[in-house]
């Protein structure tokens, strides 16, 4: 029977059905999955700041489409990441994904991407192994031991012959240890000892003492940025610098976000990395001032620049496909894309979908009363040494 209520309902359904395609044609949703709470919240905050800065500088319209960002917090837990990604794809109908703070988080969504055929731009996770998991991963953060290789070249050119490596015992740490060791041996150096410290390590004292007693020319360090600050303190306290042991590291240890907190202890530390907040370019100045303006004067670090470039890649790909949101076409569009990022010139390798970028050797110095990583030398167009061969 045709009551007034069922008529109303039918009318409602009809109007909703009519409205959906119209809205979908103009709006492209991009899902942002980041750890906004939990131990890796600082990663999430930085990436989000980078993303916001990009949108603030470039608007929300690309190729006639309005970009809508849907931010979700995975708390740094892999099964949450996967569930959220699935929801974003199925319920929200996102056409691209951006984010993924850590290797296991990125790994967990690979099956979802493969099935849904939706590209995911990795802004933070770095292990080499991720990219093989899905054809739909594209990376704008860093590729495995990319930053370690130039440090090895630089170290042997600067008279450091005997080095102890000290890395956190997990995927990225082992990648970086291998990258550094292989390159350093190629340059004729000796690795005296390879120390791996547990990821959840409260006290570096015994490991540092071991390094000290091995009497190397330098110690090469990779630890995640949070504990990096703690490491720096203990390094100085233990008098390793006075014992003539130089500290060389990837940029995680002298993270822009924490550098001022570490204090004068960090001065003179030499690191290799892809981004410094004082990188001298117009793009970087605009980026830094935008992030500082919108985030209570927060200094962007290498995570933030990952977020910024992730958004750029999404925008650029959409422009290239002329607004077509087919996953395969978007990934094709991203391959080989090259642009001037705040960090310097970067390219997406068409074969591996991974980032190719310049790595800078930097030294911590005081600039206008604040500590910064001041760039000394540039090693252009570095690839992931783990996949560069194939």
């Amino acid at each position, binding site marked *: 029977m045709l009551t007034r209520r069922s008529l109303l309902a039918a009318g409602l359904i009809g109007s909703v059905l009519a409205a959906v395609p119209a809205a979908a044609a103009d709006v492209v949703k991009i899902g942002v999955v980041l750890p906004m*709470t*939990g*131990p*890796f*919240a*600082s990663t999430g*905050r930085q990436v989000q700041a980078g993303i916001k800065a990009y949108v603030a500088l470039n608007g929300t319209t690309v190729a006639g489409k309005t970009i809508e960002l849907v931010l979700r917090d995975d708390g740094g837990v892999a099964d949450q990441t996967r569930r959220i990604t699935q929801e974003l794809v199925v319920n929200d109908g996102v056409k691209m994904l951006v984010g993924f703070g850590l290797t296991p988080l990125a790994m967990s969504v690979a099956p979802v991407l493969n099935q849904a055929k939706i590209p995911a731009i990795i802004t933070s996770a770095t292990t080499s192994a991720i990219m093989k998991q899905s054809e739909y991963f594209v990376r704008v953060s860093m590729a495995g031991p990319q930053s370690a290789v130039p440090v090895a070249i630089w170290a042997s050119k600067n008279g450091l012959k005997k080095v102890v490596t000290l890395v956190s015992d997990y995927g990225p740490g082992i990648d970086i240890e291998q990258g550094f060791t292989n390159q350093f041996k190629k340059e004729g150096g000796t690795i005296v000892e390879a*120390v*791996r*410290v*547990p990821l*959840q*390590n*409260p*006290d570096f*004292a*015994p*490991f540092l*003492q*071991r390094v000290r*007693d091995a009497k190397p020319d330098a110690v090469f360090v990779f630890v995640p940025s*949070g*504990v990096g*600050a*703690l490491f720096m*303190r*203990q390094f*100085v*306290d*233990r*008098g390793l610098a006075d014992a003539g042991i130089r500290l060389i590291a990837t940029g995680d240890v002298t993270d822009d*976000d*924490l550098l001022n*907190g*570490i*204090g004068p202890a960090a001065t003179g530390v030499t690191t290799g990395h892809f981004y410094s907040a004082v990188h001298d370019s117009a793009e970087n100045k605009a980026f830094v001032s935008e992030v500082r303006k919108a985030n209570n004067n927060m200094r962007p670090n290498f995570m933030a620049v990952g977020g910024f470039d992730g958004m750029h890649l999404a925008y650029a790909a959409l422009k290239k496909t002329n607004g077509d949101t087919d996953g395969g076409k978007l990934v094709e569009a991203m391959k080989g894309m090259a642009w001037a990022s705040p960090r310097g010139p970067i390219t997406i390798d068409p074969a591996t979908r991974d980032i190719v970028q310049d790595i800078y050797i930097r030294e911590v110095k005081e600039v206008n009363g604040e500590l910064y990583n001041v760039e000394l030398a540039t090693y252009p167009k570095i690839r992931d040494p783990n996949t560069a061969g194939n």
Partner: protein
Amino acid sequence: MLTILFDGIAYGMLLFILACGLTVTLGLMNFINLAHGAFAMAGGYITVVLMNRYGISFYWCLPASFLVTAILGLVLERTLYQWLYKADHLDQVLFSIGIVFMSVAGADYFMGGQQQLINLPPELSGRMDVLGVGIGRYRLFTVVVCSLLAIALQLILSKTRFGSRLRAAVDDRRVAMGLGINVPLVFALTFAFGSGLAGLGGAMGAEILGLDPNFPLKFMIYFLIVVSVGGTSTVSGPFLAAMLLGIADVAGKYYVPAIGPFVIYALMIVMLILRPNGLFSRGIGR
């Protein structure tokens, strides 16, 4: 290698100060308080805020963090904990782990998820050589402060009237009340004191152990190991256990770095097989 031994002692001392409050609540009051680390974290954050935001000297921050955490402990004991003294252990575990998660989220919300750093006064940083042994100044400071505390604690428990009241209240609550001992007051003060010690430990540990919102979860295992190996009926048991674990942990990581982190757990298993009631148990454990 005396430097390693010394580092181990300093680490053990720190563990002891952090965990001895738990010995008191768990051993004496028979309450499983997994949220103990949350008090330690509170102490750490109080120091960070006082030092970095208000520029107060590190030496004043230590008693301040003790006092504030003790007051916090007292308030929580009166409002929440006391209702669960008679509940069974599972309820206590669920309740206190809930507090842990709330404190983790709270610290993250108010202070942010990053590692907090404090700048020690210059006379405490660096290291010196004493008879050829390299000794970190701050670690020496830790050892001195913690041993003084341990001695004071032992004296309070065994020699003062408050100590005997506490032991009486624990041994038989009803008789103690019948003798006119104000048991709830004794328990509240003890709880506050234990929390205060944790806060002090957190403040002192910020430099060595680091401080981030996950502190209570990260160190819960260590506290529990100290208490379970040391036994809960004395202060000297956990003290020795903490020393042993500190030295074993540091030495293990130094000499056999590949399995270093495992040494402490292996030791715990061996100890628990040999002395299931703790190092110095008075016969049957409670």
